[in-house]
């Protein structure tokens, strides 16, 4: 990409403020996807500690039993739930399901593909992620 192309760049891609909740969902989907990928790599590293024997395993596992560890795991729960629920919505949309029906548009041209079904799907993903996170925090800090 060259300067001549006048691309909006990463900043333009990631800016979730201008195009409604659908763009916010797009941004969160990318962010949670990267977060889960990072967790996946960290998880492989974590479980590989079993090779260090019982002591090594217990030592590493103790890191997840701290306040910081609990907050990190709560974030993982939030990312996982949002990515799953919103992923189902996006997959259905990608198949052309629930994106409306072609018709002659009337002013002010509200796009049928950005309909209430998808908005409900996005808000549900956020809500479920919040509930699951709070439940996870209650379990972890309630011990």
């Amino acid at each position: 990409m060259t300067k001549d192309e006048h691309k909006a760049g990463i900043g333009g891609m990631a800016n979730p403020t201008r195009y409604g909740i659908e763009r916010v969902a797009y941004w969160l989907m990318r962010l949670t996807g990267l977060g889960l990928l990072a967790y996946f790599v960290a998880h492989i590293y974590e479980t590989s500690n079993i090779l260090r024997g019982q002591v090594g395993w217990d030592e590493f596992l103790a890191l997840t039993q701290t306040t910081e560890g609990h907050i990190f795991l709560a974030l993982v729960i939030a990312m996982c739930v949002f990515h799953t629920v919103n992923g189902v919505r996006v997959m259905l949309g990608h198949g052309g399901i629930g994106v409306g029906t072609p018709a002659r548009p009337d002013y002010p041209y509200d796009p049928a593909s950005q309909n209430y079904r998808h908005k409900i799907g996005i808000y549900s993903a956020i809500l479920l992620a919040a509930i699951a996170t709070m439940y996870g925090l209650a379990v972890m800090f309630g011990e």
Partner: protein
Amino acid sequence: MAQVSSIANEQTSTPVSSSKSVMLRISRYNPEHDDSSKFMEFNVPYEKWTTVLEAILEVKKHFDHSVAVRYSCRQATCGSCGMMINGKPRLACFTKISELDSDVVTVEPMNNFPIIRDLAVKFERLFDTHQKIKPYLIRDDTELETDEREFLQSPKELEQYIQFANCIKCGLCNSACPTMATDSSFVGPQALAQAYRYVADSRDKGKDSRLKIIDESHGIWRCHFAGSCSQVCPKGVDPAMGIQFLRGYLLGFRS
């Protein structure tokens, strides 16, 4: 850093009935000799019905004729005057200043298009990708040899694509698209929506060849259904809908 040049105190040469005025900030950039863009500010009077394009033309007429802007029809038909208006891609002729609900109107060239100068951008790539998806009816018997060879179509069949035929190739969808923001090779929502326009046309027989064109790494799979293209379309085309239908063919959801 943007350099601000204000000539707000200059007087217009024509009598103005409006008591309202707006600060119009115009991005100035000439790639031939400027390192970066800068904003110039103008106080422009406006009425309830004044469009952003009219305000820019007011500036050209009374303050600075060197401002580069492309326009033609002034009625959202030619698709020439697309630009970023207060951070969002819009047609300048189709955007009233009064509807922006702001004392400052900032106009910049559309994102994701090379700049010719100031507010005018190059459309070559838009037209190239549009042409790439074969925007015409494909069938063996397109030449009408007798009066009996008319391609009849029911109103229901027409409804399947007429929305997508409203595209005026203004490029706003490509400017709003988050994938276009980083991927120089992505075919873009404009071309993909037009691919669906012809695939959905009951007279067309070129579905397989078009699906083959868009079924590549920088083709339809780079669309992540953010829907920003549909939100900025000034003609109600809803490219996001067309793209998902098109992908439905490739995924086997549609036949």
